[in-house]
């Protein structure tokens, strides 16, 4: 038994627990189900943090073929992502204990929920592109049951759409991997890239095409234009806690893929100043604006939040496309903030559905009187997403904008921050009406039929914890940014 084998535990434990839930015969007592799930989540989270502080940080699991090892390595980026995943996953899980009461097939839900957790940990620990790709595909397949959970026709169709878009992206990535295998020294993620300069001589243009394809491919998961179409369809139809983790976490694996591709396989210098960078920047900027605009026009709350995800994740991609250290710091910070914020927003939407059954924004007048604590959380994270100090969103956008200005790229270095600002205005425009109507429904509003509907603590606590975290990141950003800067300075 190898000592570094311990790295496998936070991956295997949730997967096994999930499989156990799926294969287990139906139980009468709901508490058993919840108990197993909770135990699985908590043990995994403990294992994750335990592993993060271990000395051994790499482990070769086995070899797919002679030259393709399934290899895990924990690095700075992986640590950041896995921490975020764990926090959000625990919150979403706790919330679901109450929320899933009004859905059927809870066993299946929790089973897949746990399995996907394990897969995500594996994804964040992946040390080479093959391992990453392996878990990336698994994640798509295993998170699909979460999307089509309700089994309505709409949900099943959305699940199929999700899967097809994701596979389309994954295969674009795979096309690139085939070529990387030939033209690189190794497929292991290495800061600064792995391209073999001798082999690629004369083939730069083709490889630029390949890297563009890979960015687009991972961009599918991250909801980047032109392959964003699945996101507003798939995220809202899932049960609310599933939408929360899909929107908060799963889309980020696309971001992680882009980071790994650009900074750890091809190297930032390879695409700096090329048509790939330019096209990529413009795509992200367009997505930022388009997502906000579509969210602004959308009436269904969950769908509005999904469009908001499209826009916000492209903030992250915009920062990455700048190929600049400050901008990338902003991106990683936004990964953290957006995960907390978007998860909270979806959980709020879920709590509202659970308690009142209301799904449309214009139905929510007076909701603040009925569930004040919830709406306060909603408001605070909304402000954070808009980017108002002292919340996390402000700091991340600050870094994104200054990073963009620092690059001195023609046009985009000032146009980019401008788009971000406009989008922030739109964000205020699509998030705050809920608050305003919720707390101030107007004179004509009939207050008499309002009832106290505050959700119970199981639902409220995850929301509050995430809200506090989103604010704390903004109040003490240096803790996080120092860590980030430490780990990414080698990439430039």
């Amino acid at each position: 038994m190898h000592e570094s084998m311990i790295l496998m535990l936070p991956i295997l434990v949730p997967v096994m627990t999930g499989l156990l839930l799926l294969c287990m015969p139906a139980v009468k007592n709901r508490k058993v189900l919840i108990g197993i799930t909770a135990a699985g989540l908590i043990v995994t989270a403990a294992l994750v943090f335990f592993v993060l502080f271990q000395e051994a940080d790499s482990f070769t699991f086995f070899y797919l073929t002679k030259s393709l090892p399934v290899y895990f390595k924990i690095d700075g980026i992986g640590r950041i992502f896995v921490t975020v995943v764990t926090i959000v996953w625990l919150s979403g899980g706790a919330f679901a204990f109450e929320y899933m009461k009004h859905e059927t097939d809870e066993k299946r839900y929790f089973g897949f929920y746990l399995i996907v957790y394990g897969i995500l940990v594996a994804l964040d620990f992946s040390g080479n592109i093959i391992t990453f790709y392996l878990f990336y595909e698994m994640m798509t397949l295993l998170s699909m049951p979460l999307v089509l959970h309700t089994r309505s026709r709409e949900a099943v169709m959305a699940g199929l759409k999700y899967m097809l878009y994701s596979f389309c992206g994954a295969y674009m990535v795979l096309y690139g991997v085939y070529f990387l295998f030939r033209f690189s020294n190794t497929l292991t993620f290495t800061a600064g890239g792995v391209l073999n300069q001798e082999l690629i001589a004369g083939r730069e243009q083709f490889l630029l095409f390949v890297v563009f394809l890979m960015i687009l491919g991972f961009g599918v998961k991250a909801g980047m234009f032109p392959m964003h179409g699945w996101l507003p369809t798939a995220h809202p139809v899932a049960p609310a806690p599933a939408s929360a983790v899909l929107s908060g976490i799963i889309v980020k694996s696309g971001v992680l893929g882009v980071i790994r591709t650009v900074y750890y396989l091809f190297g930032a210098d390879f695409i700096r100043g090329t048509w790939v960078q330019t096209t990529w920047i413009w795509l992200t900027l367009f997505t930022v604006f388009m997502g906000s605009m579509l969210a602004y026009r959308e009436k269904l709350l969950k769908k509005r939040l999904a469009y908001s995800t499209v826009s916000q994740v492209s903030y992250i991609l915009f920062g990455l496309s700048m190929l600049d250290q400050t901008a990338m710091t902003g991106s990683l910070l936004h990964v953290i903030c957006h995960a907390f914020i978007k998860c909270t927003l979806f959980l709020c939407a879920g709590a509202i559905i659970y308690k009142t059954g209301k799904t449309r924004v214009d139905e929510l007048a007076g909701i603040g009187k009925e569930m004040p604590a919830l709406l306060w959380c909603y408001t605070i994270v909304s402000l954070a997403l808009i980017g108002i100090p002292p919340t996390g969103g402000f700091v991340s956008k600050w870094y994104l904008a200054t990073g963009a200005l620092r690059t001195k790229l023609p046009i985009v270095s000032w146009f980019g921050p401008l788009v971000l600002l406009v989008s922030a205005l739109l964000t205020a425009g699509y998030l705050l009406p809920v608050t305003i109507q919720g707390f101030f429904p107007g004179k004509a509003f009939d207050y008499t039929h309002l009832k106290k509907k505050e959700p119970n603590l199981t639902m409220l606590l995850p929301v509050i914890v995430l809200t506090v975290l989103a604010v704390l990141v903004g109040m003490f950003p240096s803790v996080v940014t120092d860590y980030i800067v430490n780990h990414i300075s080698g990439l430039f």
Partner: protein
Amino acid sequence: MQPMMMFIVVLIPFLTGIAIPLIPFSKRGHMMAFLEGLVLLNSALVFSLLMHRPEESFAIVKFTGDLTLSFRIDGMSMVFGGLVAALWPLATLYSFEYMKHEKNERIFFMFYTITYGVTLGIAFAEDLVTMYFFYELLTLVTVPLVMHTLTREAILASRKYLYYSLGGAAFGFIGMIFIIVYSNSPDFVLGGSLDLTKIGWRTDILLLVYVLAFLGFGVKAAVCPFNSWLPDAGVAPTPVTALLHAVAVVKAGAFAIIRLTYYCFGVEFLRGTWAQTVVMAIVIFTIVYGCSRAVKETHIKRRLAFSTISNLSYILFGVTIMTPLGMVGALSHMVFHAVMKICSFFCAGAIMYKTGRSYVHQLDGFGRRMPRVFGIFTVSALALMGVPGLCGFISKWNLAAAAVASDNPLAFAGIGALLISALLTAIYMLSIVIRTFFPAKDFDYETIADVEDPNWYMLLPLSIFVAAIIGFGLYSAPIVEFFTKIADGVY
């Protein structure tokens, strides 16, 4: 081992097959035991033959001069022969259960078993003449299998199958004549046996002959536009569709093309010529075409048949890369696709046998009633898509790696075709999986209360296949190494 053994293993299935309708078995069980016993024995003989293969060849008949029917085992024979010998006993076991609901099963088993011998004949053929002989024979002995149900549809399908195959073989024949005339010896030699001094100015003619022969043998490998017999032949009982039209017959086509390309014309002669471009373009088109048609089909067996068309062209894509690596890719997909496709076909057969339903939209909710069959079906679907960890990924990886290494722009496009096809595979396979495991919300499980998993005759082969899919997916190093040695001419 005695060289004679090569002839004996071909002969045993023949004799067994002929004996089945003649021996008056008192019980069905006796026939089953007799047949399975002999098939197993034969497979055991084949494997011991492959382990200790005789160096020299064995001539059965001498027609004139160079024209002989003779056997010799080289690396390629080992792959194809081993594949067939591994699958046949399992498929036979499966057929015992499946054929319960069909008539005239003795006739069926007769031809089914004879086909085993014929396929081994193709695998062990030492030269083009012998291969051609068994190739024609294969068409003839499988026609009754396609025709088996004797419905009008089946008769039409078998007629079509016959015409296509014979027509194709005729083109193969042209190739054979040219090889005999312009080569030093008609035997298969890795690297080709053409004599360039004899060819002289006739290079282009020979390239044309290669393309014709490729298409001719390609009929059995269902290359577009000669593919339409394959989905039609799906009217045959499922063991035939699964073993013959996903493995033995169609892979005999692919096998013949490998022989033609690598062992007769030789890749040195073909690589970089217009002939390579033409055949590769055809193959790439077929890859995408087959999958697109599969998406459209709603009959589950026809859908799988179109999937086979596409996957056979994966193999041929590897062949047309015309490098040793390409051959490795082709061989790995030949073996791995066999396992994956026979597995999914057997699942389809189990569904048809247990429930009589054969259209995709009739399968709602079956996943919960037939968990084993659909669990296995899901694995085979994922493998066909090329999910890492399953064997489909390995063979696609080898194909793509070969294509990248070949530096041929058309092959780069071919990788794109492979991936488009993988996406389409996801559509046509996973739409079945989702439907069966996640039926509509208001679905009433009472309506399919009588649906259940089949018995072990069917489940055992399925379990073995699924174990192979996962096993090869996780640990493929030895077998791929073996293929590499074959492509490098070590064996």
